[in-house]
């Protein structure tokens, strides 16, 4: 293992140690360790089936690892459910964007803010209108102000991705997990989306872990890159070092005409 960078040693928001998870006979994630510090943007890349989404699901608690540990903000959360990790400051966007289909975009975000503040238990209280203004502000911050009144079920996919970012931000996350944040977006939209994300990471000292198939996005927006291949870490380091790494080129980047795409 390479020595961690000073920033990571100082302030690791996410620590993943020896993570293993098998499905049937397939070891989807096989001994993965890395850290993400606050204000740091780490890209998790690798070919299809490398274990990226499984890693995400292990980190946010949708899956429990067979072996290994997940520590968030110094607390071991390996056995804790997703909702508890969310309360500890984990925000997430999904590979296949997920929103609340029966609500408007504003109501989506208002619910996420209310959930973060523990204000969703009352079966008799008034609705969530009190959160509308904050929801609108958050939507404006991700460049989706004009979507506030739209029905979430009929959004264009790129718009949905931005709404998802707002949903993830509603919990004031320390750690933001973004599974393919720009999938389904037009090339120009992608840059704009990642610019917003990068700015937020700086402003709010968020630790960002994201997967992405668009290598331009990865090299432009990652401070560090972790390369997964068949469940194992193949390489890790700064974008330039990864770009130059022969093993990575062979396993993944090598053939330009065979650019990996996701389902």
């Amino acid at each position, binding site marked *: 293992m390479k020595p961690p960078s000073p920033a990571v040693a100082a302030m690791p928001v996410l620590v993943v140690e020896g993570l293993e998870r098998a499905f049937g006979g397939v070891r989807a994630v096989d001994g993965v360790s890395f850290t993400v510090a606050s204000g740091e943007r780490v890209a998790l890349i690798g070919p299809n089936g490398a274990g990226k989404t499984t890693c995400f699901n292990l980190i946010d608690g949708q899956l429990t690892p067979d072996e290994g540990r997940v520590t968030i903000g110094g607390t071991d959360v390996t056995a804790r459910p997703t909702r508890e990790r*969310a309360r500890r400051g984990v925000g997430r966007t999904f590979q296949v964007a997920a929103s*609340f289909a029966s609500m408007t975009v504003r109501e989506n975000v208002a619910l996420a803010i209310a959930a973060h503040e523990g204000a969703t238990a009352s079966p*008799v209280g008034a609705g969530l209108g009190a959160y509308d203004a904050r929801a609108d502000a958050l939507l404006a911050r991700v460049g989706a102000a004009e979507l506030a009144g739209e029905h979430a079920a009929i959004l264009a996919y790129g718009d949905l991705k931005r709404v998802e970012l707002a949903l993830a931000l509603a919990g004031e996350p320390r750690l933001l997990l973004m599974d393919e944040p720009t999938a389904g977006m037009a090339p120009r939209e992608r840059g704009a989306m990642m610019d917003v994300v990068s700015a937020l990471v700086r402003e709010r000292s968020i630790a960002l872990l994201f997967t992405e198939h668009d290598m331009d996005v990865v090299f432009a927006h990652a401070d560090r890159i972790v390369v997964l291949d068949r469940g194992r870490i193949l390489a890790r380091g700064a974008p330039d070092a990864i770009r130059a790494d022969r093993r990575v080129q062979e396993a993944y980047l090598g053939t330009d005409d065979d650019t990996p795409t996701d389902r």
Partner: protein
Amino acid sequence: MTAAAYAVQFVNGLASASSLFLVAAGLTLIFGVTRVVNFAHGSFFMLGAYAAWSIGDALAGIPGAGAGGFVLAVAGATLAAAVLGALVEVTLLKRLYAAPELLQLTATFAVVLIVRDATLAAWGAEDRLGPRVPGLDEGVALGTRSIAEYDLFLIVVGLLVLAGLTLLVRRTRFGVLVRAAAENRAMVAALGVDQAKLYTAVFALGAGLAGMAGALQLPREPANLGMDLAVVAEAFVVTVVGGLGSIPGAFVAAMVIGLVKALCIALGTVDVAGVAIAFPKLTLVAEFVVMAIVLAIRPQGFFGATLTLPASTPLPEQRALVVDPGRREAWVAAAIVAAFVALPLLSDEYARILATDIAIATLFAASLRLLLGPAGLTSFGHAAYFGVGAYAAALAFKQGAPMGAALVAAPLAALVAAIAFGWFCVRLSGVYLAMLTLAFAQITWSIVFQWDAVTGGSNGLIGLWPPESLADRTRYSWFAVAIVAVAMFALSRIAASPFGRALRGARDSAARAESIGLDVRRLQWTAFALAGAFAGLAGGLYAFSKGSISPETLAIPRSVDGLVMVLLGGLNATFGPVIGASLFTWGQDALSRATDFWRAGLGVAILAIVLAVPHGLGGVLASAIVRRRGR
């Protein structure tokens, strides 16, 4: 009890299990291939029994028909059921394969109603007892007891069918297709197999097995009109316990349940810690308890293939934008209440009763809608909470409590039941959830039905009349309408509350809900408990409006009535429950006055709703309004 007596019960239990296996094997085969849980499966069983009776009756005049006549009767009944099954598949189920399971279950229940009345028309209301089978009508001596030859014969038939089906599935091309379809339907279609024919064939085979089981049951039990639901409920239990889609699973589960029931009978009344427990009275309860335990520990059943529960197929309305009621709706609500208050004054005794019935049905439907709508939980056993409320009110009243106190006891008792059952239910989804809710409803029904000393058994409880001040029908109607109005207001507040919004979020996307910190299960559990409590209140009001209650109060048809009312009114329409309850209650009443075959009429109406307006009339109305407002 002697060893011989135990052995007799043991064989009897296995014989019943064998018969049940035949029914369940067909059900599970159909589910495995088509993914449809066929409520009408018991109807094929019932038809098989009646058909066998008729064939046997016709052949009885021919001298020397004997055992050959029995064979012919069984073969004819099997064939008849298979043909009818194919017919039902081609005309109805083909249209429903892509539909949400709630609509599939409801539509196949409509078939139950239609077949029931067709049977009534063809064979009449009295039971039809078949003759004993020549050559199998004696007993095999065992000590002082004897084992019926026919029971042994049934066990052999069960084993033969198991072997035959196993060979069919494992060794034939048809079996390969069945297995492939069970694993990946798209792949079978891609292979160029005529999927439509495969489905029809599987459905005919399953229905034929049910018909055969019905015919074979005839020498043990007369053909009667209650067979369909009784056997399908048991077959549900067996298929779920065995693992949906698994034939060996159905066999093992049938045997386990058959033996548990035999054990209950054999144990007799036992003193446990000073309390006399009459085990023979627990037979109906036992199988559903087995099912609840298995589902709680191993949701996929003994041999179920998947560990991950399939998510519910959402109703289209569950993705529609929900607009919380506002000022306009408040005015409409006030107008509706005014109409309910005025109705008894303007009309006769009949309208007074109908107004009360509609008000109570509205509350029942609205409580169920909380589950189907915001919570997204498919319940097929909501009558349990209605019934628990009714019985709790009645029992409290019988103990000397005033009506007011009894009406407090009703929702509380239902709340407790819903909290207990809900704990298990919210761990499941989709078809499994629907079947578990049904199982709990059947447990409750069985307890009420068999616990004579407390619940009055099948006779129920009588003499539940409101106090003098409310004895007048008009006054009681107003009283009921007032309580229902308050409860409806509370339900609409719950749906619009932060909790209601979070609940809807959990339904829309469980993964997203968890990732923003919501506890999906707890939300659903709370909704289940609340829905149960409101249904219980409706049940309490019902008890005092009728003056008597019986196990019918919590039987399967009432659960389905609630579902139809909700579907009729639409999941999202603000006044869906009152629209659905009014149309349903009035329609059912008018139908039952017009014809003895009102069930068939109801069945046809249900099919029309499911096939033509799955969004419900309320949904149609709501979207028309939305269009007019230009939103």
